[in-house]
């Protein structure tokens, strides 16, 4: 499946779950992607979105984080522990336990914030949404696919906490806890990337650019806009992080640019994160 048809599929899937909403936006995204691809291929990396506008309420941030934590918990619960890399079974059990601890905290914050806890959706980690059109048919039979999907879910977690953090501005207890859970997601993601490296994958411990070249289509979406180098200094100024290191000492401009994208994890928008969650839920 190519990127465009994947985006179209997301548009359909998302519209099914939210009849009122987002088909238009995702279709638009697919069209935008079509326009952007040739430029990306040519390496013309100039015009990026200045800065993701984070919109929503603190409850939106908590709910979105909870949906991702549920997703991770279900994934770690369903995976056949017999196919994880030798010696890593305790790691997976530990990560699942930590996700469940996060779930407990998030659910309590949502309740005390007056939010409603939805029922967990149905899960299908093949990406087939209960049908036969699967993106990862061997997710629970092939170790490398399993590790890839696990990494994607943890990186999704990182990017969703990045979304949620600035929305919590008025609640110190929640800022404290979410920052600390955010960091744990980062540790998980790095560990899964380490396990993938040991299984022969070419991957760094941090998100570098959009990682599109190294990953199948669905992940390209998870890493959309991770190639951002413009960082917001304050509310009216942006800074190109890739200009912060000089081109010296055998460091190429491309390496500097890569480092600039790696040095910051980027938030997903609410809609983009929801669309990715819906690849694995129905």
């Amino acid at each position: 499946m190519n990127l465009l048809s994947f985006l179209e599929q997301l548009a359909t899937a998302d519209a099914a779950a939210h009849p009122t909403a987002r088909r238009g936006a995702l279709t638009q995204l697919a069209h935008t992607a079509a326009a952007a691809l040739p430029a990306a291929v040519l390496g013309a990396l100039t015009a990026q979105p200045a800065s993701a506008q984070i919109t929503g309420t603190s409850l939106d941030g908590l709910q979105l984080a909870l949906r991702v934590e549920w997703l991770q918990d279900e994934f770690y619960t369903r995976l056949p522990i017999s196919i994880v890399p030798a010696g890593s079974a305790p790691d997976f059990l530990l990560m699942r336990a930590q996700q469940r601890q996060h779930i407990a905290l998030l659910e309590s914050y949502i309740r005390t914030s007056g939010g409603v806890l939805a029922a967990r959706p149905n899960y299908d980690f093949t990406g087939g949404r209960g049908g036969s059109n699967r993106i990862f048919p061997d997710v629970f039979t092939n170790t490398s696919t399993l590790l890839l999907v696990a990494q994607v879910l943890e990186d999704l977690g990182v990017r969703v906490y990045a979304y949620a953090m600035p929305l919590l501005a008025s609640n110190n207890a929640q800022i404290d806890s979410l920052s600390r859970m955010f960091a744990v997601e980062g540790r998980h993601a790095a560990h899964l990337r380490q396990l993938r490296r040991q299984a022969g994958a070419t991957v760094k411990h941090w998100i570098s650019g959009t990682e599109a070249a190294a990953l199948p289509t669905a992940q390209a979406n998870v890493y959309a806009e991770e190639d951002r180098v413009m960082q917001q200094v304050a509310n009216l100024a942006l800074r190109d992080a890739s200009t912060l290191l000089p081109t010296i000492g055998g460091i190429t401009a491309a390496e500097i640019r890569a480092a600039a994208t790696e040095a910051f994890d980027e938030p997903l928008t609410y809609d983009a994160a929801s669309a990715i969650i819906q690849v694995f839920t129905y």
Partner: protein
Amino acid sequence: MATQPPVSAPDEAGFSSQLLQSVNRRSFLRYSGMTAAAVGLVLAGCDDDDNGSSMPNSVNLGTGNVGILNYAYALEQLEAAFYAQVVSNSAFATTFTDAAERTALQAIARHEAIHRDFFKAAINRDAPGNIIADLTPNFSNINFTSRTNVLETARIFEDLGVAAYNGAGRLIDTTTAAGKTYLGLAGKIVSVEARHAAQIRDIISLGTFSNDVVNALGLDRALTPTEVLATAQPFIRETINGSNLPS
């Protein structure tokens, strides 16, 4: 939380190009592996701003959000200086014989230098005149030709960085749009520091990515500036004064 003005991005090329020059020049000094002492000498002549403290060897981080930014800037200076020294050591390749480990340390060195320079740019933009001086690292107790010692120090710095950002979030005044931006930024950096920490820990011993730093509630450590500075101070020649930071 105050009402948030719309965030727009007008062109600030003038500001940018002006800022770029000084940032790049200092990056060059740092990144090219110049000794910390030499950098200190060079910078002493052009940056003598210590926010009112008259003690020559004391650095006052200041108050409010600028103080928090200076706090992060100080820690990123420390981390960046450490990794710059690791990767520029003449024995780097023989200390780290695994190319993947060298690549990782070089990447982390770049990330931390970018964080450092980013905070410098942010402070100079948002609070001109309030930035702390460049710090002089004290790595006299680190054996840069010992893989074990370098990795253990890296682990301490990375776990400390994570705990510092986790503890600083609540200290940011988010009643302004700038404050919310800083809170978001702290998040975007904390997970990268956590990735570094997990990787360094996995290099030391696979599977220790969260061992003693994530508690039974699934929470990474959060430390106050006072706690963080107590650990960081032995690695910095100037005395860091965080007593005016929000608490």
